[in-house]
């Protein structure tokens, strides 16, 4: 019952309540220290999750300090005749709005951005190089110390820490090792994708020692789904959009699922959410 009564606070955070409910929640939260603390912690957790710059200290209670300082101040009713304070021109606001739109996903995808480019590259290589392009990507954390950045071009150079010496030989051998692994592992898929857009059928399926990649296509669009154990992925949770492709990565219990394709973020998320192990 208590928990249910907190639900509007969460919805208020997201701006998903009407004016009447807002008034009631503001009254409730303002008069209850526990709820005030809850409101604060919800936002703090959100800020941390989204990678925002915050100062965390258990001792900070600016609310009480400001509230006490303002206790003697009168409440006011807005006077429409007062001049508007504008700190920015409309043009600058528009620019900043755009910049904010760019920043937010960029911040939450700080790690993923450089790395998911490799995933995208992996998907693009299917046509030319059927031998586990995405599998190589999945294993990049294992072999990146011997991969030459030049092999994948500028995209991979952002994630590879390799030096140039004797790397091309190592990379080439790495491919054969991967081929061997692919051959010696069970090809039967352990995973099931329970939801796909209409018309999508399985086009390819590859299994390696620590990941599995499924490719679905409807003839015009393609979606690849990579499943690997949590911790072996090279991207963090989030989404990256390019002109053509969307890459969506999400943790799922002890695994990490990455969906890449020329579909909308919503579709990619829905596909990722539908991936289940066949034993489930």
């Amino acid at each position, binding site marked *: 019952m208590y928990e249910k009564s907190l639900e509007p606070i969460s919805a208020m955070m997201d701006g998903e309540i009407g004016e009447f409910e807002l008034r009631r929640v503001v009254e409730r939260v303002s008069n209850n220290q526990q709820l005030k603390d809850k409101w604060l912690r919800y936002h703090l957790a959100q800020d941390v999750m989204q990678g925002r710059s*915050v100062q*965390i200290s258990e001792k*900070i209670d600016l609310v009480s300090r*400001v509230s006490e300082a303002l206790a003697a101040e009168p409440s006011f009713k807005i006077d429409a005749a007062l001049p508007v304070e504008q700190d*920015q021109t409309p043009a600058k606001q528009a620019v900043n709005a755009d910049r904010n739109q760019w920043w937010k996903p960029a911040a939450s995808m700080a790690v993923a951005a450089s790395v998911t480019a490799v995933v995208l590259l992996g998907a693009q290589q299917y046509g030319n190089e059927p031998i586990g392009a995405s599998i190589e990507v999945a294993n990049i954390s294992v072999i990146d110390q011997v991969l030459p950045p030049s092999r994948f071009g500028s995209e991979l150079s952002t994630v590879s820490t390799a030096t140039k010496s004797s790397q091309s030989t190592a990379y080439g051998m790495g491919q054969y090792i991967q081929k061997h692994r692919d051959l010696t592992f069970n090809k039967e898929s352990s995973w099931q994708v329970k939801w796909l857009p209409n018309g999508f059928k399985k086009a390819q399926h590859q299994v390696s020692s620590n990941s599995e990649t499924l490719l679905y296509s409807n003839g015009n669009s393609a979606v690849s789904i990579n499943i690997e154990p949590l911790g072996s992925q090279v991207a963090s949770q989030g989404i990256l959009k390019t002109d053509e492709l969307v890459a969506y990565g999400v943790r799922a219990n002890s695994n990490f699922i990455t969906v890449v394709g020329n579909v909308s973020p919503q579709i990619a998320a829905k596909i990722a959410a539908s991936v289940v192990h066949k034993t489930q």
Partner: protein
Amino acid sequence: MSGENNAEIDKQLVKRVQEGDKRAFDLLVSKYQHKIIALIGRYVYDQDEALDISQEAFIKAYRALPRFRGDSAFYTWLYRIAINTAKNHLVSRGRRPPDVDVDVSDAQYFEGENKLHDLASPERNLIRQEIDDVIHKVLDQLPVDLRVALTLREFEDMSYEDISVVMDCPVGTVRSRIFRAREAIDKEVAPFFK
């Protein structure tokens, strides 16, 4: 999109303050205090000093609210006040404000090379890291419906309505799932503040 909704809730809280409800301002202070202190921490070393400047910035914001009509986002306006308060504070103490300013629009995520002073002590960094770890651990353990709902909300900035389409469920269910996910996280985060 919910980014707009987030600005919208600020606007509604501001409106309530402007209409005479001072308590609504507490919620704005609570929501932004950690971000404002972090921002001001780029101008001064000392945490007590940063707290004093932050307090002054919020008081200035409160007094200026009658003139705020929401032409810019509240947080943009508040950040600008906080930066100006910090710079004025330095000048009043005979200290020169840094040449490198913090862009208001980037301040939320500011971690760049031109970072000014940083308040974060190793101990505070550790707390943040621990909270970060705890949050991701809880996220991993959440039932998939809760995790996906919260992920779509927090990382993709989707509205409840958009999430309901993606997850093929009513908006009320989305609201409940996001709340339950937040509660699961809060249960683990709360002990850090006791």
